[in-house]
């Protein structure tokens, strides 16, 4: 089978998954009250969230009349229609990126968006690049850790290297992410406490490792918007490089290192065992014996003949565990105050609920997982011809 046929077939399988995921969020949404639904779709700024308004505006406690705007929104959302029609409406809005408005009075909006009601899709487009940068760095670290450690623990089976890898694997699973993240943050802050902190005279704790940008006293550049939306690409490191501010780019990058290490440590733990075991299997196959027999040096055998296999395994397991991997971002971004989608979700849920943001972020995270799985499948087919030929 040709590669592109495989890709198209794989993309077609995506359609039921996307419909299903949206149906699940629709089912959760349908437990909300009509007022909450209207608020999450249109925001309350224009006063459409109350079913009734005073008939005479000068007399707020007087007789109440139906609110025209409320009725308009109610009809526009199809809330008086059968549930199937509501489902259709929801799907249409979700697919056309009409993901509703943020709630101007919610905690997330107050903290991050300056009390304004903004379309959820727009807000997410500001926050997504930050999460993607963190994810990219973590993935890079995972590949750099899992492949060589897995290979060497298979080659030196039951030797100290292998035992160390096993310990790392088990402890990575058993250490709670929030604990590891906090301890690493404290440790780094304590270790580098000699670094100067002078930002407009204000003292900011954990300055060098906390937050996505230097604190405001340190002078955030003009091309970073009010809500930290960076331009032109949206990716802070790339933007800083584009504007020629290399030290700022380095600063922003350093802020990502400890979060990425925390994420990579937990994720590598679940991958290492699989890499090791598959490597052990491959080392017993005929072609490895042939390579050794014809005199290829052992390091070459491990790296080029058997080792290529462990990249496949790493990518496959990563694809299977990607949903769990990306779910951990909510905690890590909260600990390090990183300006990502996970922080947005947590802030949207916590002291007060912002339903528009909650469902928007959930949908976005799910789309990330689905897209990542597609990429993994295609990569896998590319790396292992048996998949697309078989």
């Amino acid at each position, binding site marked *: 089978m040709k590669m592109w046929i495989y890709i198209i077939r794989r993309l077609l399988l995506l359609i039921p998954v996307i419909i299903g995921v949206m149906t699940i969020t629709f089912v959760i949404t349908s437990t909300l009250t009509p007022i909450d639904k209207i608020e999450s779709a249109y925001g309350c700024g224009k006063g459409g969230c109350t079913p009734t308004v005073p008939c005479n505006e000068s007399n707020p406690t007087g007789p109440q009349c139906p609110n025209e705007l409320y009725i308009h929104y109610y009809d526009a959302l199809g809330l008086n229609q059968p549930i199937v029609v509501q489902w259709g409406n929801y799907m249409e809005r979700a697919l056309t990126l009409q993901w509703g408005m943020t709630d101007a009075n919610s905690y997330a909006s107050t903290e991050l968006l300056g009390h304004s009601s903004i379309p959820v899709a727009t807000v997410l487009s500001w926050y997504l690049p930050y999460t993607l940068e963190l994810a990219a760095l973590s993935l890079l670290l995972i590949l750099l850790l899992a492949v060589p450690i897995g290979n060497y623990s298979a080659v030196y089976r039951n030797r100290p290297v292998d035992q160390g890898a096993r310990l790392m694997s088990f402890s990575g699973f*058993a250490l709670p992410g929030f604990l590891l993240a906090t301890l690493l943050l*404290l440790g780094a802050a304590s270790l580098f406490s000699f670094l100067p902190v002078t930002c407009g005279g204000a003292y900011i704790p954990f300055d060098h490792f906390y937050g996505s940008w230097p604190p405001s006293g340190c002078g955030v550049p003009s091309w970073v918007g009010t809500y930290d939306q960076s331009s032109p690409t949206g990716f802070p490191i790339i933007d800083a490089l584009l504007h020629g501010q290399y030290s700022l780019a380095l600063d922003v990058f350093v802020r990502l290192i400890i979060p990425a290490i925390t994420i990579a440590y937990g994720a590598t733990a679940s991958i290492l065992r699989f890499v090791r075991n598959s490597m052990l299997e491959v080392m017993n196959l005929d072609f490895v014996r042939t390579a050794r027999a014809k005199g290829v040096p052992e390091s070459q055998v491990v790296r080029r003949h058997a080792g290529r296999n462990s990249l496949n395994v790493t990518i496959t397991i990563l694809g299977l565990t990607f949903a*769990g991997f990306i779910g951990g971002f909510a905690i890590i971004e909260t600990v390090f105050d990183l300006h990502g989608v996970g922080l947005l979700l947590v802030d949207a849920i916590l002291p007060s609920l912002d339903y528009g943001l909650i469902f928007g972020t959930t949908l976005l995270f799910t789309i990330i997982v689905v897209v990542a799985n597609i990429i993994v499948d295609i990569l896998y087919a590319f790396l292992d011809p048996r998949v697309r030929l078989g």
Partner: protein
Amino acid sequence: MASAKPSIAGAAPAGRRPNPQLAQFKRTFYFLSRNTLAMIGLAIVFLFVFVAVWGVFYSAPNAALVSYCGTTSSNGQQNFSSVAATCPGVTLCTYPITSAPIANCYPVYQQAPSQIAPTWDLAHFSAGPLPFGSLTVTPGLPYFYNPFEGLIKGAQWSLGIAAGIVLAGSFIGIVFGCVSGYFGGVVDEVMMRLTDIFLSIPGFLLVLVIIATIGYTIQSLDGKILVMMGAFILTWWPGYTRIVRGQVLVTREQKYIEASKASGARPGRIIWRHILPNSLYPVFVQVSLDVGSIPLALGGIAFLGFHIWPTQYFPEWGTIAALATNDLSEQLLVCTGGTCVFPWWQILFPGLTLFLFAISVSFLSDGLRDALDPRLRR
């Protein structure tokens, strides 16, 4: 199943075949017992289970949930007396954090965090020593919490919730996986697309969203816990379904299934008597691993500040560890100058409990995998 099983109690009577399932169990345990790490894991898990059972009958001298010389009323409301009062058996005192610590005195920070310049320098903190089970101090708040008693009282909650979620999830997974794998065709296709859908939603986020939307509308403790468990089950059953289905696909091609079909057994009997017992082993491995990760996930939820419990200081392992972690960074910010107590015991014991439980179940799970899979034995 209905036939008499005389061999369970002891040696099989002469002329009877020994019970094959018991023999299998003995064989598995034999292989497991040769794995030192797995046996250590098993011992620690048994210890925790014992603590959980004991904790039900254990009444803490000053209850798991204590306040600063205050009382905890039945609804969890905490009432406080004046700050200078002392609790029986524990010396509590207030002193300015710039002065030297007094022996057996636990500092109470009266200043609000905003009034004190923050620091990150660990050199300001002495490492104790403070007795095991010292009270936890939350800066700015007159709450006290004994982590030792909290952990004992928390065992039943953590283990109970974890066991409930994993058992329900694996039950659904076994049923769906058997049906899907055995019948194949359209049923299988629909089931697998369904698991695809659930596996694409990040599980932890789905739990957060369900707690936020449905859980917050429910007031009772039992209701909240049920919603949370339901959310976890919803995210975990697809994994089990996949595992069971994969195993069933292998099992149903075996000769003995064919023989059973040829002798006219109905599908229900084939699944129950032949396929199910031979497809369960990977589930055991996964279940033993997952039990350890639930308290970690609960800790994550509590760390983010979700109120799934009636009070903030509810005894549950993950919650205790999460609160201690939150308080730790807060206290490091608060304390500056003079000698401050670095509250290592607050974070060490809850963290160690979570870590020990999770790592011992993963040892056990690894050992089980080796013992149950003939290819990995030796």
